[in-house]
Structures are given as C-alpha cells and as structure tokens.
C-alpha cells in the first residue's frame, strides 16, 4: 500500500463533486430551477474527467490507501478507509462517465418536469454513494453506501409522485433490497464476532480459511441477491421500469445492480469453495429464468430489464466458477451497451410521445393514445429514427455477443472460464456449461426479436410524424454505442488482450471456445430470422413466463398476505387478549370493590345499626315500665312486694 497526496485530493474531488451537485440542487430555488440542468452535468463531467485521469495515471497492480477513522466504541475502531486498487480504479470512470452521459441525456428527456431539482439531486447523490461503494476499504462503509444507493433508487423510481404504480414499484424495490440487506447484516455480524474488524485490507488477507467464512460469505451473497436481482429476489427489477428511462439506464442496468457483482469480486478471497458453488448455481438459474422471461415480454423496458437480470446472472455465475475477472469485464461491457440500449429505448419513447402530442395538438384524432412501450405498436422505425436505430443495433449486437463487439469478448471470457472449471469429466458442472451456452442462444433470440419488432416490422403508425430526439440525447447514445464496439475493450476483436483488459486482470482464453460460441451465435441469428422475419407464428407469449414464472404471484399471495395476516393476529392479541386481560382485572377489581362496599354497608354498618337497634329495643322495653298509667305502677309495685315477701318468708 502506498500513499500519495495528489491521488488523495483527486479521489476526494471525484467522490465529492457529485455530492456537491446534490447539495446545490437542494439549495437552488424554484425560480432558478433551470440552473440545475447546467450545474449537475458540469459537476459530473469534472468527476468523470478526474476518474479517467486516475485510470490512466495509476500504475496497474498498485494500490493506495487513505486512512480515515469514523468512530470508535471501546477498544474497537470503525474505519472509513478509501482504497484505490485495480477494481476501484476500473469502476470509478465507469460510474462517473455513464452518470455524466445520463445527466446529459436527462437534460433533454426530463425537460419541463416539475421535480427536476429533486431528480438531479438524487442522481448526484446516487453517483456519490455508488463511488463510495467502490472506493471503501471497510465492509461497514460499503454497507452504509449500499443502503444509501437503495434509498436513491427508491426516490428515483418513485420520481413521478402522482403515479401510484411508480410508488408501489419503488416500495417493492426498497423492500426486496432490505431483505437482502438483512442477510448482508448477518454476514457483517459473523465477520465482527470472529475478527472484530471490518477493514478489507485485513479481511482479504486472512492467514487461513476459517469455518465461519462459508456462512459469512453466503450471508454477504444475500445482499448481492437483493441488490443484483438474482433468484429469488429479482422481481423488483422489472417493476422498477416505472421510473424515468434514464434512471433505468443508470441505476437498473449499468451501475447499482452491478454493485452486487462488484462486491463479489471485491470480497472474493473470503469465499470458500462451497459458498462459490451456491453462487454459481444461483447465478445460472437466474440467467436461464430471466432470459426465458425476456423472450416473452412485449414492453421494451421489461425486455431490457429481464435481459439485465439474465446478464447479471451470467456475471454471478462467472464469479461462482472462479473467474471473477471475467465477471468484471462483462460488468464493464454490459454497463456500456445496456445503458445504450436503455437510452435508445428512452429515445424511442420520447419521440413517440412527442409525435402523439403533435397529433393531438394539430387536431387529428385523439385515438393516438397507444402504449408507446409495447413493441407490437412500433415498427419500421429504422427510417424515421436512424441514429437511434444504428446505436440500438450496435448495442444489441454487443449484448447478443456477436463477434467484433465488446460483448463478444467478455461473454467469451466467461464461457471460457466455465469451460475450464467444468473440466473433462462429466459432472453437474457440465450442466452449468450447457446452460451458459443456452443463455447465449436465448440472448440472441430476444435481442433480435426486439430489434425486429421495433425497427424492421411493418410500420403500424405511419400517420404519425416521428422525428429523432434532440441532439443532447443523441450524443450519449453515440458515445455509448462506440464504447460497445470491440476496440474499447481490447485491440484483438477475438480475444481479451490489450489496454483495457489489463486493468481487469488475468483472463483465460481458448480458441475452441471462441469458435464454439461464435457458432452458437450464428445459429441463433438464423433461428431468429426464421422465427420473426418470416411469418409471425411466434408472436404470442406464454403468460406464465411473462409473469416471472409466477414468482410475483407467489410473493404477493404467500409472503405478503401471510405477513399482513400475522400483523392482524398481533393486533387482535393486543386488543382482545392483553388489553382484554387488563380490562378483566380492572372489572374484577371494581366488582370486588362493590362486594366490599356491600359488605361495608350491610355487614359492618349493619352490625353498627343492629347495635343501635338493640339498644333501641332494650330502651323501649325498659321504657315500657314508665307507662304513665297508675294501674300499671300499682300492678308492678304489688308484684315487687309479693316477690319481696316471698324471699323474706321463705
């Protein structure tokens, strides 16, 4: 570890300029809200430039550590160290550049929006938190920024406050992330109980493999399942498409969801072989399920969302088979081409909405109210939206893994990694290898299905005057498309070698695999042509697959409803049983008091009254002798005399 103050300063600047953008957006008043469309992109450009400079300046395989203590409890210190290592230097420009391009794009896409300050504030805060994740050297700090990223995702998905579906989607995203984070937290607890230290510079260099590492790494993987939308917690990502499209591009394609894969690569030394097997299986299952779902969607953004889940699954699988470098390469290429695809989709949506508006204004039929995101409503747009068409095609080709594009190289390295991992003897590992090939095939299918429907199919809305989006939206598209061609990644279009890949680390290569995967891609292209370019026999989708294999229904009915029922049980217990018991004791006490009162009135007071009554009776009895009748006095005197004589004479 070395130290260098220039790098410290520059890193700090790159990290804090997006935060400054966030704060500025909060301070700027409503009257000057147009200012944020200038300040935010400018500040992000600064951050992006610094990150690119650091990428080219810091020599490979060196790392710089900036020590900062956050707080201490007793004899333990929680640090907030920043580390510039191979991974963080790779991720920094990726995040900053794509964020800057999305900022630029949003200036056009979100023009006229009421909450534009809140939007750019949250974009800036997101970038800051994401940079925090990749720069932190401390697991606790990663967790802090991890949760903050989830918060900004919530705010951005639900950006259009009046849209109930958006609020629901935002809530679902945060909740599913929280469930994963609870697992992450348990992982943190296990690490703490055994090492009392969260610094990765210590944790990644443990002297031996401990038994607790499997549990800890699997729990940390739970966080990844939530954040990177793996099975079974992926259903929040398709719903998150309710947010603005630039948000989907930045957060739910390029960066936030990739944070999980980054974390896996970052703490890779902590994983034991058993944990890695679980990771691989989860990854490939996700990739398969999601790609099948993508093939059955009709909404552009949902296709892209499922595609993202599928690609993330591939990346996770790569980590699981031990090729974390291949996973990182795929992360980088995926960020660029997926962002390009999403921004392209946004451009299509924007252009069509605009055309719909124009049709309304010019007094033509108001029936032009179709869903612009449904690919069946689009068609033949390649002539009307040429820039969008070309960039979409390039990015799509990269996604499909067609040779001469960046996606091919990265996917190739993953397949090679799985190939070597599955070895020559037949085992369950071969299933994973076959599945990886299957996923590549299906990827081509759904990508070109989408491209066909949007750009090549018969035009259904020829009466609308559809024009390209403004230049500020086209420039990011072009930049990202250029980044999806092979020369960003390596100089040789068929194998991973060259300036960029040295930043990723060692990658395996096999000519056989390259040939095989190219063959699979070709096969898939032919299949797609056959299925869609010829008569549309394969238009209809399978509903089961369209709804994420029924998982959504399962979660809602089984988990959602049972928790709500449990809550109702808790409420009844509180009201009827606990409070009821209290009321019972209160009533018992009051009834007992009434009994005592009765006792007091009738028994105690009664005996007092009885005494008085007896004395009254006795009094009346003795009073009766003083009747006032002379005959009575003579009578009683005679009786007394007789008794007296009786006693004297006897």
């Amino acid at each position, binding site marked *: 570890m070395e130290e260098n103050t220039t790098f410290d300063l520059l890193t700090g600047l790159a990290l804090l300029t997006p935060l400054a953008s966030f704060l500025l957006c909060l301070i700027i008043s409503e009257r000057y809200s147009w200012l944020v469309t200038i300040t935010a992109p400018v500040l992000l450009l600064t951050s992006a430039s610094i990150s690119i400079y650091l990428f080219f300046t810091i020599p490979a395989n060196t790392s710089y550590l900036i020590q900062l203590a*956050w*707080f*201490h*409890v*007793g*004899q*333990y210190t929680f640090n907030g160290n920043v580390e510039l290592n191979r991974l963080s230097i790779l991720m920094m420009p990726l995040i900053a550049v794509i964020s800057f391009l999305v900022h630029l794009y949003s200036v056009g896409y979100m023009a006229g929006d009421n909450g534009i300050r809140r939007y750019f504030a949250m974009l800036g805060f997101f970038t800051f938190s994401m940079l925090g994740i990749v720069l932190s050297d401390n697991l*606790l700090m990663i*967790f*802090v*920024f991890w*949760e*903050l990223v989830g*918060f900004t995702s*919530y705010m951005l998905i*639900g950006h259009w*406050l*009046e*849209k*109930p579906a*958006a*609020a*629901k989607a*935002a*809530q679902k995203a*945060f*909740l599913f992330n*929280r*469930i994963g*984070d*609870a697992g992450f*937290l*348990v992982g*943190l*607890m*296990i690490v*703490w*109980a*055994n090492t*009392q230290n969260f610094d990765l510079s210590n944790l990644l260099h443990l002297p031996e493999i401990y038994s607790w590492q499997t549990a800890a790494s699997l729990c940390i993987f739970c966080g990844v399942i939530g954040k990177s939308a793996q099975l079974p917690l992926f259903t929040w990502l398709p719903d998150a498409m309710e947010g603005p499209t630039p948000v989907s591009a930045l957060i739910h394609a390029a960066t936030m969801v990739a944070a999980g894969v980054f974390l896996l690569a970052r703490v890779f030394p902590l994983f034991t072989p058993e944990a890695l097997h679980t990771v691989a299986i989860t990854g490939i299952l996700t990739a398969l399920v999601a790609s099948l779902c993508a093939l059955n969607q009709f909404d552009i953004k949902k296709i892209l969302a499922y595609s993202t889940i599928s690609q993330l699954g591939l990346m996770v699988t790569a980590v699981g088979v031990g090729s974390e470098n291949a996973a990182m390469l795929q992360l980088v290429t995926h960020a660029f081409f997926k962002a390009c695809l999403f921004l392209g989709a946004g451009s299509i949506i924007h252009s069509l909405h605009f055309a719909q508006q124009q049709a309304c204004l010019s007094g033509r039929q108001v029936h032009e109210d179709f869903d612009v995101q449904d690919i069946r409503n689009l068609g033949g747009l390649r002539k009307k939206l040429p820039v969008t068409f070309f960039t979409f095609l390039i990015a799509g080709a990269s996604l499909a893994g067609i040779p001469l594009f960046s996606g091919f190289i990265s996917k190739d390295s993953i397949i090679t990694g799985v190939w070597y991992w599955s070895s020559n003897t037949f085992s369950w590992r071969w299933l994973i290898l076959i599945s990886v090939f299957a996923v590549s095939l299906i990827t081509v299918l759904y990508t070109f299905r989408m491209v066909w429907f949007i750009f090549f199919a018969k035009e259904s809305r020829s009466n609308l005057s559809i024009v390209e989006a403004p230049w500020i939206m086209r420039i990011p598209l072009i930049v990202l498309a250029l980044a999806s061609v092979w020369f960003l990644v390596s100089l040789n279009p068929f194998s991973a070698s060259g300036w960029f890949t040295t930043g990723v680390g060692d990658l395996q290569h096999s000519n056989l695999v390259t040939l095989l995967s190219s063959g699979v891609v070709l096969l898939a292209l032919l299949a797609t042509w056959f299925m869609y370019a010829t008569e549309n026999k394969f238009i209809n989708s399978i509903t089961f697959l369209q709804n994420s294999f029924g998982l959504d229904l399962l979660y809602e009915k089984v988990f959602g409803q049972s*928790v*709500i029922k*449990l*809550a*109702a*049980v*808790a*409420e009844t217990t*509180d009201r009827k049983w*606990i*409070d009821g018991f*209290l009321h019972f004791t209160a009533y018992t006490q009051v009834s007992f008091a009434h009994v005592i009162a009765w006792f007091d009135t009738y028994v105690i007071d009664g005996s007092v009254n009885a005494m008085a009554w007896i004395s009254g009776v006795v009094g009346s009895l003795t009073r009766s002798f003083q009747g006032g009748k002379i005959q009575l006095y003579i009578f009683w005197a005679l009786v007394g005399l007789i008794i007296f004589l009786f006693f004297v004479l006897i």
Partner: protein
Amino acid sequence: MSQHLLSSLIFTPVAAALLSLFIPNNSKKTFRVLTLVISAIQLILLIFIVHETRGGSFSSFLLTEKVNWFSIDLGTWGILQAEYFVGMDGLSFSTVTLTVLIMLIAGISSWTIDKNVKGYFILLWILNGAIVGTFVALDFLLFYLFFEFMLLPMYFLIGIWGGPKREYASIKFLLYTLFGSILILIVLIALYISVQNPEVQDQIVHTFNILHMTDPSNYIPGSILDPEQGWMIGSHNSRWWAFLLVFVGFAIKLPAVPFHTWLPDAHVEAPTPISVILAALFLKVGAYGLLRIAYPIFPDVATTLSWFVALVGVISILYGALNALASKDLKRLIAYSSVSHMGFVLLGLASVTTEGVSGAVYQMFSHGIISAILFLIAGVLYDRTQDRMIKNYSGLSSKMPVYFTIVLIGFFASLGLPGFSGFIAEIMILLGAFRSFTANGLIHESFAIIATLGLILGAAYYLWTLQRMFFGPFQVKSEIKPDQLVDLDKREYSMFLPLILLVLLFGIFPQILLDYTNPFAQHFTESLLQAARSIQNP
C-alpha cells in the same frame, strides 16, 4: 456555581411553576414566552455542564451534590436516613441533554394549547423538573420520589388536554405505571433493610444510596438480599425475585411486550407535545432504570437472566413492528414503532458487551429525537384536520411538499437508514448482541439474527404508509376539506429543523455522543461481569 449546576437544572422549572401561580390566568403569551425562557436557561446550564465536565471521566459520577436530607433515630431499629444525592455520568449526560432539548421542542409545540394555559404550563414545568431529577438522582428514595412525581402531571396533562378517549387513556396509564412503581417500591424497601452505609463504622446505618447498593460487600450479613445468605422464596432465591420485580417495574415503563398496552392509548389520546415527551423521555426512564438500578445492583441475577431480557427485547421488536403494520391510525403506528425500537435497547442491554450497551444508550438518545420528529409529524396533520386515519389521505406530497420532505426524512431515519443516528445505534446493538455469545456467553446469536427481521418490517410499514398517504393523486376522504391541508408554518418548521440537523449530526459524526457514552458502557460492562463473577463464586 458549578457545585449546584444539576440542582439548578432540576429546580429552575419547578421554581418557575411555583412562581407562576401568581400570574393571571388569561395571559397565554406570557406562558408561551416563559416556557422558552426556562428552556433557554436550561440550555445555558447545560452548556456550563459540558464545559465543567470537559476532560472528566464519564465512567464515574461528576458534578455530584450530596446533602443530608433527613435522618430519623428509630431507637432499636437504627437510623432512617436519606440523602439528596445527585450526580452525572455518561448515561445521565446523554439523557439529561435529551431532556433539555425535547422540553424546548415540546414548549414550542405547546403553543397550540388553548384552554387552561396556566395549568398546562405549570404541570409541564413540574414534569420537566421531575424528569431531569429522575435522571440524575443517585439516592434510591430521591429517585423514587422524582419517578412518582412524573406520573401525576402526566395524568392530568393527558386527562384534561387530550383527545376523545382521554379519561380512559390517562387512568390506564396512571394505574399501570403506578403498579410498576409499587413493585419497585417493594424492592426499594428490601434493599434498604439489607444495605448498610460503609462510611459509618460503629453502628449499622441503612442507606438508600444506589452506589453503595451496587457493592456486594455492603450487604448486612443475614439480610433478605444478602448475596451470601440465599433466602429462598419458592424455587428461587430472594435476589432473583427482587430482580424480576424491579425488571417488571421498569419494563412497564420501557415499554416491553406484554406490559406495553398503556402506550398506544396514551399516545393516541395525548396532545402532540405530551406525546413527544412521552415517547422521547418517559420511555427512556424505563431503560435508564434498568441500566442504573436493576443491572448494577443485581449483576448475578441479571447475567443469569440475560437470555430472558433479550427474549423480551426481540419479542418487543417483532410484535411492535407487526402491530404497527396493522395500524389504521398514523399516531398508533408511530406508537407501536416506539415499542419496537425500545426492544432494540433491551437487546443491546442484555448483551452486556461494550458496543451493545453503548448502542443501547445511543438508541435511547437517537430514538428520543426521531420519535419527537415522528410525533410532531402526526401532530401537524391532527392540528389541521383532527383526522389521523391513514386511509383518508392520498397524494399529500403534491399538496404539502415541505411536509412530505420532513416525513421522508423522519420515516427513513426511523427505519435505520445510514446517515441518520438510528443506524449507528442499531448496528452497534446488533453487533454486540451477536458477539455476546462468543464474548461472554450470555445470549445466543439467534436473537440478533431474528432482530434483523424487525428492520425489514420497519421498512415495510413505513414505506406502505408513505405510499398510501403521500404518493399517488391527491385525494381526501371523510370530513376533510382540501383547504385545511396547508403546508408547514414557521413555528412548525422551527421545531423540525433542529431535530433533523441533530439526527444527521449524530448519524454522520457519532463520536460526539460516543465520547460520553463509551466510558460509561465500558465501565458498565466490565464491572457488571466482574461483580457477577465475584458474587457467584465467593
């Protein structure tokens, strides 16, 4: 001057209460200004306290005042003696600071009270003095006195100025907490006759001094709570029963499930400033009692029963969260979330690890501020429409944007988002609770794991409320008129702003408070485990 800082802090509001009996009844403005003046004086005293205690050791008691209160010669039964003994350590410092701050906010919030303003503020000031006194008293009788003195003003404050069901709520609150006080009284008397004052050598003088009670060597041989004697009542010894009684007494205040049912009713019916004081301060007295009295005086039983305390804590976390999820009334939801968060305090306390106990004290402070924000949020709505039912509102974010921002901050702070103080507290508690098994073997790791479910449920009920009440198109139901829903005015904003800044400050720079609570937590943990060991193996 520095000798009497703590007493001044206690008696300033009480003196103001007595003097204001002479102020005519109908000058509302005088009382409103006077409450701000009293809070200002308390803040200045607090600054003096911070200055005086700088560099002192917060694991021991600073700024102590000890004066003989009364001493009665009972002949053959010895001498009945009580002292006025107050002092401040790391724990008291955080709770006293919280009290001063919350009383200021409650004072500003009390400006909405209209009827019987004089009576209201006099009761409020007596409450103020009593709460500060509870937190600094080190003589058990004095502590008990202040403890009881909190109940009566609260009873009237809820019962006269509260909502529709206020009589029910206030009597329930009073009798329930009074029952708890009786249990504490029994243990108080038992301790009194068992403990002798070590400063007097030639004769046995009983003492109420809490510090003397924590030292096992001060017990009179053969007394009922003597650790070496082992008086058995039923199947357990007398100390076991004493701990249980005092635990239940304070658990009622905490409130721990199943002794919590007074809380929802009291909170829902109390006026907003009183709800703030109830949630932010009252509940902390319960936790404070456990930390100051129950655990240090009975370390042997406390360590044996730590699993039980942790169990009660985890049940409170989950049960409170589930009930919050089922609540239809906004204020009831927030009340149950308070139950849930205080469960975390119990969990941290039961772990008896430095980070667990420090986290518990931090959670007391953090939850105090956050629950003040939350109840003020409920109050904003209630002041305008007298309707707190969640289903009657929708899309409030477009009508009241500033209010929406505050609600966002309040809810996310409460569910433990990093950057706010609640996260620091909860992470320390969970780490401590998990490590406790390997460190001191008191509670099993599963308690901490199950407690994380509480975090998920917290996100669920808060986000669901946000979605129902604030997102979507604007719509109100029942008797509410849209014109009633005006955004925050300056007075309300002035209450929220400092609280939010504090929550952010203690979330980003936790060391400020930890410098005070860390020495206390460390000392507490070490001495507790040591004392437990020495009693159990004489």
